[in-house]
C-alpha cells in the first residue's frame, strides 16, 4: 500500500486505474451472468472501452486508439451484427448456459491464476514512473518497421491466410 502513495507515483493515475478496473470487473461479470445476448455484448463493449482507457492512463495513446478501432469499432459491431441477424429476441433467455460450464470455470481460474502469478513474479517489485509525454506514433512505427519487422510480416501472413481461408469456407461454388 505504501508504494501507492510514494512521492514519484502519480496518485490520480492510480485512483483512476482502480476506478476503471472496478467498472471493467463489474462489466465482465455481467457479460457472463447476463440473461440476454445483446446485453452481454454491450457489457463487453464497456469492458473493452475500459481497456482502452487503461491504455490512455498508461500514456499509450496509439494502442488505446487501436483498441477502440479494432475491438469496439469492428469486432463488437460484427458481434452485434451477427447476433441480431440470427437471434434477435428481446427480454430474458433461459438456455444461454453451456453444459460445460463446470469445466470452464476451473480452466478460467487456472488461466487467470497463471497470468497473475507470471506478471507478479516478473514485475511485482517494479514501480513505473509516469512518462513525460505519450509515446509518439512515429516512434512506434519505427520500432515495428525495424526490429519488429519479421514478426510483423509473419503476423500479416497469418492474417492473410485467415482471410483467404474465410473466403474459401464461405464460398459455395
Amino acid at each position: 500500500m505504501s508504494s501507492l502513495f510514494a512521492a514519484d507515483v502519480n496518485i490520480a493515475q492510480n485512483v483512476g486505474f482502480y476506478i476503471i478496473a472496478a467498472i471493467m470487473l463489474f462489466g465482465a461479470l455481467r457479460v457472463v451472468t447476463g440473461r440476454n445476448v445483446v446485453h452481454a455484448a454491450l457489457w463487453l463493449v464497456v469492458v473493452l472501452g475500459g481497456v482502452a482507457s487503461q491504455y490512455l492512463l498508461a500514456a499509450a495513446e496509439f494502442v488505446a486508439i487501436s483498441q477502440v478501432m479494432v475491438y469496439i469499432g469492428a469486432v463488437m459491431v460484427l458481434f452485434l451484427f451477427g447476433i441480431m441477424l440470427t437471434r434477435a429476441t428481446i427480454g430474458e433467455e433461459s438456455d444461454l448456459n453451456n453444459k460445460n460450464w463446470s469445466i470452464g470455470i476451473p480452466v478460467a481460474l487456472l488461466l487467470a491464476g497463471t497470468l497473475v502469478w507470471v506478471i507478479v513474479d516478473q514485475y511485482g517489485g517494479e514501480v513505473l514512473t509516469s512518462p513525460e509525454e505519450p509515446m509518439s506514433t512515429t516512434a512506434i512505427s519505427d520500432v515495428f518497421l525495424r526490429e519488429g519487422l519479421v514478426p510483423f510480416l509473419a503476423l500479416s501472413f497469418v492474417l492473410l491466410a485467415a482471410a483467404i481461408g474465410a473466403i474459401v469456407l464461405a464460398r459455395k461454388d
Partner: protein
Amino acid sequence: MMNLALEIPYWGQSLLRVLGGIGAVLLPAGTIVYLFLFKMMSFMQSRLGPMEAGPFGSMQLLAEVGKWLQKEDIIPENADAKIYKIAPIIVLVSTFLLVVVVPFGPDAVFTNFSAGVFYALAIGSVSVIGILVAGWSSANKYSLLGGLRAAGQLIAYELPMVLAVVGVVIQAGSMNLQDIVVAQNSGSIFGWDGVGFPFVLTQFVGFLIFMIAVQAELTQVPFDMPIAESELVSGYMTEYSGFRFLIFFIGEFATAGVFAFIASVLFLGGWGIPFSWFGWESLDAVDNWMNIVGPIIMLTKMLVLTGIIMWVRFSYPRFREDQLQRFAWKVLIPLSLANIAVTAILKVAI
C-alpha cells in the same frame, strides 16, 4: 498587428474548450439544417421553404426544436426500454468525441493527439453501435432491418474512408491534424508559395473517395438504404419520437459538419492561410489573431463541403443495396489501395 496574447488560466481554458466543443457541434448542425435542408432544397424544388418564423424563416429551427421537445417520449411496449433510451445518446456522444481532435487555430485546439486522424476514424465507428442497438431495441422489424442495413453499409464504407486518409498521412508524414494543416500551408507548388500546398491537388482521388465515403457514413441520399422511407418507414429511427428523435436528427447533421471539418483539415488546408503571406516560418510564429480568423475559415470550408454533400443528396436517386455494397468493395477500396501505392512510390521517388 493585433495582439491577443492573453494568459488564460487552466479552468478558463477548460471552460472555453467545453463551450467551444458544444458550439462546434451545434452551430454547424443548425446552419446546415436551415441553409441547406430548409432553404437550398426548397429553392431547388421551386418553392420558398419556411417563411413565417422570423425574417426568411430563420427562427424556424427554434420552432422545430420546441415542437420536438414538447412531444411525448413514447417507448414501445415490447421494446428493451433501457437500451432504447441510451441508443440515441451513444450516437450524439460519438459526434462530440469526434470534434475533439479538429484544430481551429494555432492554439484553438481541444486536444493535440499525435495520432489525431486515427482517433477520428476510430471514434467515427463507435456510432454504428448506437445505430445497431437502436434498431434492435425498438422491437420492430423495420427498425431491425434498418439497423442491420446501416451496420453493413457503415462497415463497408469505413474501409475506403480509412484508406483514403492514408494517402494524406503519407504526404504530410504525420497523423497529427495540426501537423497536416502546417504541412499544407507552409508548402509550395514548384517553388511558388502563393496558396501553400493544399493536399486536394495531389490527393484528388483520395478527396473524392473520402467525400463519397462520408456521404455513405452519414446515410445521406443516394446512400440512404438504411432509412429508405418507401420500404422501411424510417429504418432504425421508426419508433423514436420527441427529443430522442431530435437527438438522432441533430447527430446526423452535426456529424455531417464534423466530417466536413475533418475533410477540410485533411485536404483543403484547414484553418490556415498560406504562411508565406505574413512571413510565418512555423506554427509557433503564427500570429494570435489566427485563433479568431481560423474558426471562421474552417466554418466557411465546412459550409462549402456540406453544401456539396446536400447538393448530391437532393439531386440523386437511391442506390439499391447490392449496388451500394458492390460500389464500396469493388470500386472504392481497390481505387484507394492504388492511390496509397502511387502516393507511397512518389513520396519515396521525389
